[in-house]
């Protein structure tokens, strides 16, 4: 009877969250949105490499901790930062290749054709030609141009698709080699896309990037606030508590482009030696606080548990959990749909999000200026990503807050399992008992 009651409670919670999951799934599975996500994943190696070289270069300056950590590097700082400027700094231009490619792949169009089309469209859409002395404006090439990239990529592939699906193309008579035919097939859709962008950018002189910087950037920048961050973390935890990948489902499709822009702006500010504008970055404050608070305490409690299978599972989950790979804990313990742990899980996520953002906003710790692979253990990610050892305070405090809030709920959970374990043991050895 009792368990049945609990199951209906969980079911009720589940139903509520499924209501939320439905539209989110539909949104993140829209071909254009999915293509943007996949395209951004495609440029991650460049962001990570750019980040690593920026960190290396800064070891030759006094930007981290006020002392030059590796004096040998000092003369080469600017040279090393070239790698950062041309990878992470040109994020937009690379995304202008990967987003159309992902979009084409999903729509069953030719990937190579659409990549070329996408890149050219991006240039048409953002550049008003090359100046007489051979220079071009590179503003759009950076993360600042990311929204322009998204718009130009989606429009380019979308128009291309309309033309090819309706067969508005030049078709060659039989006998013309296939490769020649393909080259001509692209002519009409390519021309249409380019002319549209050229009219907008060059004839009407409408600079989309400039427009965005003037009107949207204040809004984009304002999105980096404690309310949005807590909303992000809270909803993500809610989804994880139902065993759904909250970050993949909610954070990435909605916030990733913003986070990447903020990361690159911080990184550029760091290289320029000015103060960092953003608290919220890609794989930044969230990754040094969320899992240390939500999963690490559970691993410790499992290891120390009297319930045999929890103890074994705790040790098994430990190495992955340190790298913030949390699925074994979420599904093994499980946390997902666990009536005892659901509530503290979400409550901790919200409290830790508020405290973490506050800690950085009040200047107790230097801000993240790079992004590193997400599976980097938080106690390494913090110091490497911010250059500030005080980021370790966030990791430790998150863990302790999580532990304190979980404890009463854990005791109830463990008691219910111990009862079951005792009953099982009694069943297994009835002779010894009597």
């Amino acid at each position, binding site marked *: 009877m009792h368990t049945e009651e609990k199951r209906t409670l969980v079911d009720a919670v589940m139903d509520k969250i499924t209501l939320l999951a439905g539209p989110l799934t539909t949104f993140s599975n829209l071909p254009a949105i999915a293509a943007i996500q996949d395209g951004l994943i495609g440029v991650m190696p460049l962001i990570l490499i750019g980040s690593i070289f920026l960190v290396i270069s800064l070891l030759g300056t006094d930007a981290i901790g006020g002392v030059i950590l590796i004096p040998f590097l000092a003369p080469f700082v600017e040279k090393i930062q070239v790698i950062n400027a041309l990878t992470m700094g040109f994020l937009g231009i690379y995304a202008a290749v990967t987003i159309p490619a992902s979009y084409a792949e999903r729509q069953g169009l030719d990937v190579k054709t659409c990549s070329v089309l996408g890149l050219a469209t991006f240039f048409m859409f953002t550049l008003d030609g090359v100046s007489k002395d051979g220079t071009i404006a590179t503003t759009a090439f950076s993360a600042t141009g990311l929204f322009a990239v998204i718009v130009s990529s989606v429009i380019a592939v979308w128009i291309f698709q309309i033309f090819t699906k309706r067969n508005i193309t030049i078709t060659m008579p039989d006998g013309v080699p296939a490769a020649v035919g393909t080259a001509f097939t692209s002519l009409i859709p390519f021309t249409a896309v380019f002319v549209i962008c050229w009219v907008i950018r060059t004839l009407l002189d409408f600079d989309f990037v400039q427009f965005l910087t003037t009107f949207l950037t204040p809004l984009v920048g304002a999105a980096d606030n404690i309310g949005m961050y807590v909303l992000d973390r809270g909803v993500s935890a809610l989804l994880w508590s139902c*065993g759904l990948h909250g970050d993949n489902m909610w954070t990435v499709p909605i916030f990733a482009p913003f986070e990447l822009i903020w990361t690159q702006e911080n990184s550029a500010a760091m290289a320029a030696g000015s103060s960092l504008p953003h608290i919220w970055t890609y794989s930044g404050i969230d990754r040094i606080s969320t899992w240390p608070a939500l999963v690490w305490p559970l691993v410790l409690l499992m290891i120390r548990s009297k319930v045999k299978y929890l103890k074994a599972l705790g040790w098994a989950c430990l190495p992955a959990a340190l790298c913030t790979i949390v699925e074994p*804990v979420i599904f093994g313990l499980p946390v997902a749909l666990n009536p005892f742990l659901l509530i503290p899980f979400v409550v901790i996520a919200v409290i830790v999000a508020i405290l973490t953002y506050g800690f950085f906003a009040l200047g107790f710790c230097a801000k993240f200026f790079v992004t590193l692979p997400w599976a980097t253990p938080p106690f390494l990610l913090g110091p490497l990503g911010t250059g500030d050892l005080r980021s370790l305070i966030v990791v430790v405090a998150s863990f302790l807050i999580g532990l304190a809030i979980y404890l009463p709920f854990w005791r109830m959970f463990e008691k219910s399992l111990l009862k079951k374990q005792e009953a099982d043991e009694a069943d297994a050895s009835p002779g010894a008992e009597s």
Partner: protein
Amino acid sequence: MKKIVLLCSAGMSTSLLVTRIREAARSQAYDAQVDAYPLSQAEKAAAHADVVLIGPQVRFQLDDLKKRLSCPVDVIDMMAYGTMDGAKTLAQAQKVMGE
């Protein structure tokens, strides 16, 4: 030989399970190739697969993947996934393939 493909968000947590499934397959003398990939590479990874299994945390992608992929797709059982139970997951894969 059967080709079993596991997919999750980044291919990391399913790669933990891959070794367990390979061990289970070896002990049953079942000839299978098992690999884990991120969801973003679904098409390429599943090109010659006999079955695709996805992590329960990305189960919201099931319908979309079923539309995009030609082989059978299923969500790995939550408990089997959490406890990294290779034998149980292998049995699930065999069942989905109709063996």
